[in-house]
C-alpha cells in the first residue's frame, strides 16, 4: 500500500510525522519552483541566442578548435555525482538519521561542485590564452553569455550550501532549516537540467554543426 504517501511539492517530500508544517512548506517550495521556472526562461533565451550564433565566428576559433571533451566529461561526471550526493543528504534529512552523515554528504556535494567550477574556469583560461574570449566574435560572446551563467549559478549554489552548513552547525536541524535544504536540493538538481542542455546543444550541437 503506497497510498499513505502523497506528493505535496516538487523534490523529496518529508514523511507525515515530520516536525515541518506541511501545507506551509508546500507553498514555500512551490514559490521557489516558480523562481526556477522563470530562471529556465532566462536560460532559454541564452540558448536561443547561442544557436543563432553558431557559425558567427568572424574567422576566429570555433568549436572544433576550442572544445576540450575530456574536461567536459569530467565536469559532467562531477555534476551528476553531486546530484546523487545531494539526494543522499536529503534522504538523511527525511528519515532523521544522524546529522553527521548528512554533513558528510553535503560536504561531498560541495567538493564536487567546486571541482566542476575549477575544471570550467581552467577551460575558460585556456580559451582566453588562445585569444578566444567574448570579445573575439559573436559566437564566443554567446558562448560566454551562456556557459558562465550556469557556472555562476553553481557558484551561488556552493555559497548557499556553505551558509546552510554554518546555520546547521549553529541552530541544529530546526524545521526552518529543513525547508531551506529542500529548496537547495531543488536548485541543485535544476542546474543539472540546464547542464544537459549545455553539453547537448552548446558542445555537441555546435561541434557537429559548426
Amino acid at each position: 500500500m503506497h497510498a499513505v504517501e502523497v506528493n505535496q511539492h516538487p523534490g523529496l517530500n518529508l514523511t507525515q510525522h515530520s516536525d515541518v508544517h506541511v501545507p506551509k512548506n508546500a507553498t514555500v517550495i512551490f514559490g521557489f519552483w516558480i523562481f526556477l521556472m522563470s530562471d529556465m526562461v532566462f536560460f532559454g533565451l541564452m540558448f536561443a541566442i547561442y544557436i543563432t550564433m553558431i557559425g558567427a565566428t568572424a574567422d576566429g576559433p570555433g568549436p572544433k578548435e576550442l572544445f576540450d571533451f575530456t574536461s567536459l566529461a569530467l565536469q559532467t561526471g562531477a555534476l551528476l555525482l553531486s546530484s546523487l550526493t545531494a539526494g543522499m543528504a536529503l534522504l538523511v534529512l527525511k528519515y532523521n538519521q544522524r546529522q553527521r552523515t548528512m554533513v558528510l554528504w553535503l560536504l561531498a556535494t560541495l567538493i564536487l561542485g567546486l571541482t566542476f567550477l575549477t575544471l570550467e574556469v581552467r577551460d575558460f583560461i585556456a580559451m582566453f590564452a588562445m585569444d578566444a574570449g567574448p570579445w573575439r566574435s559573436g559566437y564566443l560572446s554567446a558562448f560566454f553569455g551562456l556557459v558562465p551563467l550556469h557556472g555562476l549559478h553553481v557558484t551561488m549554489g556552493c555559497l548557499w550550501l556553505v551558509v546552510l552548513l554554518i546555520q546547521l552547525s549553529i541552530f541544529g536541524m530546526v524545521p526552518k532549516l529543513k525547508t531551506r535544504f529542500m529548496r537547495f536540493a531543488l536548485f541543485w538538481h535544476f542546474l543539472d537540467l540546464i547542464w544537459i542542455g549545455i553539453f547537448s546543444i552548446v558542445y555537441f550541437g555546435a561541434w557537429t554543426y559548426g
Partner: protein
Amino acid sequence: MDNKEQYLRDLRTYVYGFLLAVVLTVAAFWAALGSGWAPGTVLSVVGFLGLIQLSVHLRYFLHIDRSRQQREDLDLILFTSLVVLIIVLGTIWVLGNLHERMHMHM
C-alpha cells in the same frame, strides 16, 4: 507503511535515477564523439537522448510525476517549456530566415 521500506524505495529512486543519467550521458558522448555518424543523425540522437535524460532527472531527482497532488507543478513546467519553445524556435526561425536572405551561412 514501514519506514524502512519507504526509505529503501526512496534510496532506490535516487540510485536508479543516477544510473540512468550516467548511461544516457555516456550514450550521448559516444554518439557525438565516437559513432562517426552523419551530422544530422548525431544531432537527432543527441537531442533525443537529452530529452530522455531531462525527463529522468525530473522524475527521479525532482520527483515530478503525474500524481494528483503535483498537477500544478507539472502544469507550471509544461507552460514554461511552451514559452521556452516559442522563444527558441521563434528566434531560430526569424534569424535563420534573415541569415538566408542575406546569404550568410548560419
